[in-house]
């Protein structure tokens, strides 16, 4: 019985450690969130060319590091998918880039050469008015597999409560 309980605790702990990186980052404003640019998904070998995690939640003023873990990727904001008052970014291929998000809202971004193969992702910057650009962002036409990936991302973000005005 004790052995079973220990085993269960071990499995739960293992699952938590394994799944934790897959969850969106809910880091506090003084921490830096990290998004890796990968050619191969770390846990699903069938997925190629991905940002990991693909949904990140940060506080206004927080910085995100887009880490060029694998080659041939970059991070760039998608036209029409960031708040009006926010600044666009366009990282260089094979290079890390840090972006500070001061304006609350949803931010769609892409890897420039791999966007149409579905290498797109979302950052939600918490704060007042964070949903102001949601409709505009969701209305942006996506190319190729990015359509499918963004459909999944919006659904996932909604399930996580990130697309509610008072999400944590």
């Amino acid at each position, binding site marked *: 019985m004790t052995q079973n309980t220990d085993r269960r605790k071990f499995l739960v702990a293992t699952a938590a450690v394994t799944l934790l990186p897959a969850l969106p980052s809910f880091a506090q404003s003084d921490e830096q969130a990290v998004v890796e640019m990968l050619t191969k998904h770390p846990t699903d070998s069938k997925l190629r060319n991905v940002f990991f995690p693909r949904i990140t939640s940060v506080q206004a003023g927080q910085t995100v590091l887009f880490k060029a873990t694998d*080659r041939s990727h970059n991070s760039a904001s998608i036209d029409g998918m960031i708040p009006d008052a926010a600044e666009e970014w366009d990282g260089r291929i*094979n290079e890390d880039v840090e972006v500070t998000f001061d304006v609350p809202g949803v931010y769609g971004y892409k890897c420039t050469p791999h966007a149409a193969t579905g290498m797109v992702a979302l950052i939600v910057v918490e704060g007042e008015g964070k949903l102001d650009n949601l409709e505009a962002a969701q209305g942006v036409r996506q190319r190729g597999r990015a359509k499918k990936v963004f459909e999944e991302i919006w659904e996932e973000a909604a399930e996580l409560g990130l697309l509610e005005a008072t999400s944590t």
Partner: protein
Amino acid sequence: MRKHGVFSWIIGVLLPLMFGVVAARADSLTIILDRSTNSSELYVAGPAETLLALFDVDRAVIPMQDGVVDYSAFALGTWGIGDALLQNTRVTFDNAPSGFEAMSFMLHPSEDALPLQTPFDANMAIGICSALSSPERYALEEMTGYVGYFSDQTSSASTIEVVLPSVSRTSLNISVVDYMQGGALTFVRRFEPGEPIRFVIPPPGNSFRLNIPLVLLALVSVFAAAWKINHRSFVEHCLRQLFAKHHGRKAQPTSCSE
């Protein structure tokens, strides 16, 4: 002895050479279709020059510099090349537009051919990966092109028709790998020189049902042939008896009579 030597020479040297020449003159393309319940993906791969010729696209669509492919231009995405390749080609789902749009196009050296059996392989091949930073540069003739298309329409139960804008220059083999839920169907369609390149990929269930009569026919043929071989002597015996009776002669026993 000399005769034997001549035959050996023909079989050992000439025939492989002849087959080699025939094989070398045949173009080939690979098409991988990935049918999902809410989307469709189509991948095409083949020698770069063959791709451009068969899809009737000018080679100027590929960025070149000093006679070699300019990979640096690929960094902004290559779906424009993919769209250009498809612009003169018709792909339909049950006679309606398929809605395919390019995801990516990539060139890899033909000498290092990539595996191309599954949609996953193809998805890897169209990705712009280490080539961007590789110092190696190749002429178009030395490269194989890989292009992928996505449609948000399902084709899981559709007849898909592909009509290319050109005719085959030489013999052309198109290998089609049709992925669907539950497995894949692979077939090769051969086109002779000058033949319009047009083919149909049947809906998943139909291709199997269409083959059932053929399989049954083949089985009946095999059984009939086997029966005929085993009973030939009996039939022959009966005929001989009939023939002898008709001519008033005594039937000769056959060596293998029943």
